[in-house]
């Protein structure tokens, strides 16, 4: 009988079937001890769709062709898809045209595979002592080595997408961060003067002696770790220097303009735009950075609260390891905090998202017009000197647009901030067009791009709840 069973479940402890160590990479092994979490984990292969998200790996370049122009001259102009579940991360990276048709470094693996053991082995190979005390050093060294390797070689070192061991200590199952890129990044952030009210442990560290660098694994609260685990990968990055060292640009703060200021300072360009000749930046999945600007972060709501909500299985509450869009799981993801119906909560999400989408449509047109304008001025013989102002404005406009476009929540993670950046993007883009027109560029004004596929259903007011 059900109630009987549930009373038993409530008392059950973990049966240790397998002994887990730092060498147990295979999640299947972990699954023997933790079948519920493993179940969820494997379900990230599921394919589902939401209005603006979901996990169908559609080609964005087809649904929104304007991006072929915006990315012209860069690998993203040949293949750029909707991301999907964690189960696919390694395969998707190996198979993208960006890897097949362009040379990429081993640095890419950092976020697409269970790399920990590979890093450590390489570090030991490079001469770090193989004892427990030097495990961290070996990983950090191996990270540097792997970053610099060609992708084709490096990818042979790994075989699993992100696995249990990447987020959990094998003995205690405690949540942990393991990614060198993140550990370096969060230290730089801690050393900056960027106010970060949602990470009290950093504010505390700043007030201390600062003798030891900030260490999430020993200093962060459990609730903070529930976001930091994801901030290992869902962040903006670049590959610094010849060694292609994966670096998170948080030295001046997490806002788009602070990251831009850092890139300006170190003189970083992702590429030179093929049509306009402007030195531009590429934004990549700044979920953590955008979430940090939002009210949920401010109120202490973590990534895991929405993307890995608790799920009752019998008498036991487990974190749903089927990481996916919360829109597919409104009851558990939202209703523990918001007492409203499913349809009402979906309407709230879509109201925010359709505002963002509408602004993005406009900003895409503005950046497109700017590129065409510079291109035509250039064709008409304008000098680099004459085009300098317009190109600098393209860099700013495109960065802000891409920041919100590359971010994956369609503005939900910080709605007003997303709208602010898109607003600034349009201001800069049209200013740039004024500058370009001045030196002979075209003055065409394109109406907001019309979405080509269902991924961008036309924005509209969300319907009232039933």
């Amino acid at each position, binding site marked *: *009988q*059900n*109630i*009987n069973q*549930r009373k038993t479940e*409530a008392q059950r402890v973990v049966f240790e079937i397998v002994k887990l160590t730092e060498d147990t990479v295979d999640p299947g092994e972990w699954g023997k001890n933790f079948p519920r979490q493993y179940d969820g984990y494997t379900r990230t292969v599921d394919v589902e769709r939401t209005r603006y998200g979901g996990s169908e790996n559609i080609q964005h370049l087809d649904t929104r062709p304007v991006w072929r122009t915006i990315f012209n001259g860069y690998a993203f102009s040949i293949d750029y898809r909707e991301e999907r579940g964690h189960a696919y991360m390694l395969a998707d990276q190996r198979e993208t045209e960006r890897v097949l048709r362009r040379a990429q470094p081993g640095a890419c693996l950092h976020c697409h595979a269970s790399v920990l053991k590979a890093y450590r082995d390489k570090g030991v190979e490079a001469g770090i002592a193989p004892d427990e005390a030097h495990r961290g050093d070996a990983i950090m060294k191996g990270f540097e080595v792997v970053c610099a390797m060609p992708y084709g070689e490096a990818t042979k070192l790994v075989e699993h997408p992100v696995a249990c061991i990447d987020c959990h200590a094998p003995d205690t199952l405690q949540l942990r961060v393991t990614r060198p890129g993140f550990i370096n990044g969060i230290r730089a952030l801690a050393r900056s003067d960027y106010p970060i009210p949602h990470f009290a442990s950093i504010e505390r560290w700043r007030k201390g002696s600062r003798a030891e660098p900030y260490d999430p694994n020993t200093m962060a609260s459990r609730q903070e770790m529930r976001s930091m685990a994801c901030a290992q990968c869902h962040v903006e990055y670049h590959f610094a220097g010849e060694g292609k060292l994966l670096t998170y640009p948080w030295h001046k703060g997490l806002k788009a303009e602070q990251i831009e200021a850092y890139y300006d300072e170190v003189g970083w360009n992702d590429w030179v735009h093929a049509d306009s000749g402007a030195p531009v930046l590429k934004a990549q999945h700044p979920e953590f950075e955008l979430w940090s600007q939002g009210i949920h972060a401010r*109120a202490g*709501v973590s990534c895991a609260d929405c993307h890995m909500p608790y799920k*009752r299985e019998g*008498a036991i509450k487990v974190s749903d390891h089927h990481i996916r869009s919360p829109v597919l799981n409104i*009851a*558990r993801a939202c*209703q*523990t*905090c*918001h*007492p*409203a*119906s499913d349809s*009402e909560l979906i309407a709230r999400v879509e109201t925010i998202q359709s505002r963002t989408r509408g602004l993005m449509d406009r900003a895409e047109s503005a950046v497109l017009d700017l590129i065409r304008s510079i291109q035509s001025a250039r064709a008409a013989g304008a000098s680099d000197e004459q085009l300098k102002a317009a190109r600098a404005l393209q860099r700013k406009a495109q960065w802000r647009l891409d920041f919100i476009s590359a971010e994956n929540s369609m503005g939900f993670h910080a709605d007003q901030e997303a709208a602010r950046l898109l607003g600034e993007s349009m201001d800069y883009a049209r200013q740039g067009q004024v500058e370009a027109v001045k030196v002979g560029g075209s003055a065409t004004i394109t109406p907001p791009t019309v979405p080509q596929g269902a991924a961008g259903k036309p924005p509209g007011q969300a319907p009232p*709840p*039933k």
Partner: protein
Amino acid sequence: MPDAPRGPSPARSFLGLGLAGLVLSTVLGVFLGLSLYTFNHAEGLSYMSDDPRACVNCHIMREQYDGWQKTAHHAAATCNDCHVPHDLIGKYIAKVDHGYRHSKGFTFQDFHEPIQITRGDLQIVNNNCLRCHSGLVSELNVHTPQGVQSANCVHCHAGIGHGPKR
């Protein structure tokens, strides 16, 4: 408050059935909706008691119980002070209704999670706020287009029973 922000409003129509209806629903509630075994084992009869521990017999009520222990009401009001009507008939109708739905939910595991309070039960709660605090809020019982109404306490004091949700 906008329309329908809350969970489903189950049939409480038998409220109007009078005494015969009450007896009938009790019988139906006990024999159709759940087996006697379930009812006993879950200490279902403790629905008739006012001890909050009766509620945590179901682990599913644990969160509210833990929360309640930390609120100012811990010393002032028990679960039933807020969640059960305080006129005699209403009290037992509600207990049967709850007993039926909660046991059914628990037995068949078919209820909406997180648990959401129903409209009818929210009304009961609000009436109970007034029962204890009527003096303080007497001026807030104002004439409205729908007659004289009290304020909707839970609109502002949602966290008062077992702590804030967010």
